[in-house]
């Protein structure tokens, strides 16, 4: 399977990224290499082998429903470039 420019453009759109022509060509090239690597793995005979999803099958310890002290709003907004009245302010979405 080969990756096409359109595939990369679609992924870029989903990730809200934009590439210029040269960047796009470079991305197509990189994706192609990654897919080629996966294709090599797929040549292995994996008949009867369950896919490995979790390294730890013990299950996770659960947290009791006790709230912790939240951050101060000013602290929460500290890394934001743009805020207003305690809100994060972002480019208009609708």
């Amino acid at each position, binding site marked *: 399977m080969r990756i096409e420019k359109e595939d990369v453009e679609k992924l870029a759109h989903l990730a809200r990224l934009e590439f210029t022509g040269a960047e796009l060509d470079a991305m197509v090239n990189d994706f192609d290499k990654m897919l080629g690597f996966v294709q090599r793995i797929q040549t292995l005979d994996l008949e009867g082998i369950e896919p490995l999803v979790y390294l730890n099958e013990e*299950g996770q310890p659960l*947290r009791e*429903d006790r709230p912790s002290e939240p951050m101060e709003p000013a602290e929460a907004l500290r890394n934001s470039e743009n805020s207003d009245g305690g809100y994060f302010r972002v480019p208009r979405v609708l």
Partner: protein
Amino acid sequence: MSDSQDLSAFEPVIGLEVHIQLNTRSKAYSADPAGYGERPNSMVGPISLGHPGTLPVVNRAVVESAIRLGLACGCTLRERNEYARKNYFYADLPKGYQITQHTTPICTGGSIGLGAKHGGKRIALTRIHMEEDAGKSLHDLDPFHTLVDLNRAGVPLLEMVSEPEFTSGEEAYAYLTEVRRLVRYLDISDGNMEEGSLRCDVNISVRPKGQSAFGTKVEVKNLNSFRHVQKAIEYEFERQVTLIQSGGAVQQQTRTWDSVQGMTQVLRSKEEAHDYRYFPEPDLPPVYVGPGWIEQVRTQMPALPEARIERYTVDWGLSPYDASVLVEDKAMADYFEHLVALHNRPKACANVLNTQIRAYLNQNGVELSEYPVVPERLAALLECIESGSLSHSAAFQKILPLMESGQTAHPLSIAEAEGLLQDRDEDRLRPIVLEVLEAYPAKVEEYLGGKKGLLGLFMGEVMKRSGGKADPQLSSRLVQEALEAQRKS
């Protein structure tokens, strides 16, 4: 739109997706507090904010809420629960993905009953799974920007997906009513649709009656009341049928409900549909829900509305209407059962709750938890009526209001102080009865001649002359005895 004759050749196929916001104290995957109506961005921490390097941990209460709901709906519970990432970019989703369950929902199967009004029809459930909410975007506070509050980001949700088994907006309304009642009984959510604790998306298609293949499906979002869900379904059914009948075809779309104009409008088309690229959440190992845990939750389950209606009607002889009104609110049903345990006259108990107490709550705009008369004291009052010490009207029109206003003495003591005790002293009542009969000799003749209806007249006179205190049952017997004695003489 078209008239109903055109519509009758078609039927809608409707499924509902309901998001239930849980009432846990902390969030689904972090210990950040979960709360409603707080200052913006005051209920957050590094995990809610999606900061790099943070790790989620599952809140036990979320899994337990899912088990409760699953048991209540008769679902099959999954032992090994995996989590997945649902990827999309939006300003109020700081991580860029939602942690949800994809291929392994905790509950599968089960059903929700629509109640007696719909012939006991049940809607089958496809699944219930655990996930988290996004933050809130505000688009109307700033003309050029969107403002984001992440307090809600990470608040736990259960998503309940039904099979496409609804055939009308009314059925959808009944289903949502039952879901709300259920989550309140189970105490897993406040179930308030206006505040967003319950959110509903509708999937609807239409097909000619008798056709088994489904038509093209439209999803309707932004429905923030039960009434809107019902109206949106009715609107979409007509829109889709009219479209087909005029030679058009339904487009696969996501639409939004415009409650001001009373119509649905396109939100996005199939081409713009999301591509969520689900994959297993590497930060969360599976959560195991073993039989021991399920049994432990089962023993703590409250009696559910359907089971209570059954008991009230079959065992206690209430009408289906009285029973359904009582179970509408869990606090009311609990109060009722407490009262019946103290005063074993279910019908009398139901009447006082559905009439006098409901009137008090409505007039004062308070919840039952704020009602000032506890079941023990109300039972004592009902006992006084039952034994004949108090008349029905004195008890409810005079004594109960005094108890509601804070008088804590025994109802009998209050009645005595107010001079409202019923007179059941035969030696005092008999002379009054004779006095009345002497005053109306002509009427006595008529009565003895067969005009039994005159008994009421004599009774009224006895009540008047006793200052309203004569025990009606006793007086009635004394009047009849005196009349019969005259016949013999």
